[in-house]
């Protein structure tokens, strides 16, 4: 039953959406609006499920006395503390906004900025001329990097022009192929799920 019920719900959901979008009766009944509202409520409810799941996971780790108990405690404290602050102050509250701007923004920006260091280190090690293709990729990467910054403009008009051609023509052509392939793959997977052939999401 743990497989049949979710599979049936999946098939019914697909049929309702197809009926509401492609048949005049479905359109007249305005079923799309109903299903859209259900989906929005499901999204909102999934946040609650996420919070409950995190709570259960970290409470369990605390109960078992794992050596990460301090981090579990911090996570639960921050999560419920911030939820409580939001409920009391709303998102317009001074403290709520201060916590966001003084803690989350710098942390999030720092995480993203660290990528620059990894990229610098990785490019030093990875971009080696081992073959013709590798050399081609390295030259293209160097041209795009130099053509993307004012230094490239200042050195020669060739760099921004080369970057523009690589981005607008060469990579666009390649990426279109990838996107069309991914789109067709997505459509095929949707059919497989609808027909019950693909059941990985049901752990079957």
């Amino acid at each position, binding site marked *: 039953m743990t497989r049949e019920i979710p599979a049936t719900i999946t098939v019914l959901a697909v049929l309702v959406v197809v009926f509401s979008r492609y048949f005049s009766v479905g359109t007249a009944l305005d079923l799309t609006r109903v299903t859209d509202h259900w989906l929005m409520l499901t999204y909102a409810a999934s946040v609650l499920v996420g919070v409950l799941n995190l709570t259960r996971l970290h409470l369990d780790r605390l109960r078992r006395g794992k050596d990460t108990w301090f981090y579990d405690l911090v996570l639960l404290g921050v999560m419920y503390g911030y939820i409580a602050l939001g409920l009391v102050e709303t998102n317009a509250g001074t403290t709520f906004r201060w916590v966001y701007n003084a803690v989350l923004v710098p*942390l999030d920006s720092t*995480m993203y900025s660290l990528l620059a260091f990894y990229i610098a280190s990785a490019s030093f090690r990875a*971009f080696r001329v081992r073959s013709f293709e590798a050399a081609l990729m390295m030259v293209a990467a160097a041209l795009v*990097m130099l053509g993307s*910054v*004012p230094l490239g403009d200042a050195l020669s008009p060739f760099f921004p022009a080369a970057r523009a051609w690589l981005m607008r023509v060469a990579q666009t052509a390649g*990426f279109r192929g990838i996107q069309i392939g991914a789109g067709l793959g997505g459509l095929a997977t949707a059919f497989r799920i609808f027909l019950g052939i693909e059941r990985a999401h049901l752990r079957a």
Partner: protein
Amino acid sequence: MKNRWIYVLLVVAIIVPLARPIGLPVNPTRETEDLFELIEGLPAGSLVYLAMDFDAGAIPELLPQAEAVFAHALLRDLKVVIHGLSDQGVLIARDSLHPIAWSLGKEYGVDFVNLGFKPGGGIVLRGMTADLWQTMGGVDIDGTRLSKLPMMERLKRLDRKSVALIVDFNSGGSAAAYRNYVTEPTGIPLALGSCAVNFNVQMPFYRSGQYKAILNGLRGAAEYERLLNRPGKATSAMDAQSTSHALIIVLIIFGNVLHLLGGRRLGREKR
């Protein structure tokens, strides 16, 4: 070469030009000029919809873009509505864009409105094309009733008649949601503010005409600031980007020289 030396060099390459700017000029690209000209061409009073679909991690790249475009729209006497498929984007807008509007003497509810965030992604957008007020629960970001905001009288739903342009500042997949659920069905022109790392992903849609313009990361913001003649955060950060890119290229060359020398030595040892 140990990682720590690469990191030290990169820190120096970023901090020195930030402290002592070189002032290299930023030449606007076609993709940025398209957005500037689009906004220049809108009649006063037209409504521009800014989608703040990014989190704090993308602030350095996307917020300067949003600030420049928002200021441009208000300077042109356009009306601006802000919305976000990211819960953080609309809060960032409240702290960063609203003060710009007040500094230009604009009034909340008359010249600009921040609708806030609703979960649901593309489904929220589809709901907004049918009934924006109902989809947003009839309130803005602070819970003020939309009926009390005069500007909202002319925006009951997202359609071509009400909205002249959508600019989506995004660090993820929200552009696809706008394409699929709003701009393709309604015909509203769509422009994009993209992180540099996503720029190549979005380029095919610009080339096909589905995006009227794209701003490319921090450089796109700096180009827009130059077109607007209002140098800001992005312009001052471009020198640091120049030196850091140059350093990476030097490192790549250095790595290859070491690789070639190592290969030759290995060959001699084998002989």
